[in-house]
């Protein structure tokens, strides 16, 4: 079982992973982001 501080770290890591993935999507698929802004 992870310790409470390890769980906090993992939640931060998840949020960061989502942000990094979004950056990568923006590089390869800027069209999807344009769609979002004009929707």
């Amino acid at each position: 079982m992870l310790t409470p501080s390890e769980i906090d770290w993992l939640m931060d890591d998840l949020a960061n992973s989502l942000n990094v993935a979004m950056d990568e999507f923006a590089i390869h698929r800027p069209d999807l982001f344009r769609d979002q802004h004009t929707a």
Partner: protein
Amino acid sequence: VLRPDAERSFLRGLPADEARKVMGSRARLDAVMKGANPLTVVNARIDPLYHTRLMGEPNDRPSLATLPHRSAWNGNEPVQISGSVARVQGHPDYRAAKQGDSRAAARLAMFAMDADFMAANGRAIAAENPVIVPVHAHEGVSVNRISASVAQWLGLNLHLPVESGIVQVNRVGHTRSTGWHRLANQALFAGAVEPGRNYWLVDDFIGQGGTLANLRGYIQSNGGRVSGFTVLAGQERSAILGLRAETLAELRNKHGQLENWWRQRFGFGFDGLTESEARYLIRAENADTIRNRLADG
């Protein structure tokens, strides 16, 4: 603990033979009399699931559940699977993604969940207006960030939010492990669930589906609703997650005498198993085989 020496005082007040019986052995009693914590002595080398705890012991933080919650299935809960394991593992970004490279994981998600996949599966997800939840887990040496990238990719394409506050709180070592190991080592989760909200669950790979079943149970036991499941890769036989009534009947017919033991060991009955887990157990020769293999797992 209010009186640190209370247990020793209690044991000292007993006849020697009684004190030995309370602690289970002379060696254990001696260890406690020399200052060891009685709970540490009693719980040494015992599965954490079965640790002895003191009733009413003060606790400075809410304890995490040590058994998964599972709810019964309707019997037809499917999993969207974007492709075969071989297809995903053959991608040049796979190795880096599995080792925790979020950018590689993002490229892998884009490759596997292409326009054809979104056209075939996106509508079913979007219709539920869910929050997408990835299985985010520490796998020992690294964090596997593929599920997070898959969740974000679905969210971006379908204009849905992605949950970042629910994570797996134990290390289960499922990668490349046997079905028995997977059954014996259940994934547990923590994090805030919004009651009444729809959740759509995402993982990188599906084998027996136990991890998704446990995340479903965690969310449901906290008041959320689970609308469906998507994974990056898996075999076609894993596409039915929910246990079918005829499979449950077949399992109970073959190993029914084991169900009470199973419930005590895992916290849920056979009706909480996934279709693949139940099929795996049905293939075991007898109840002793199952108990022994799980003990080894």
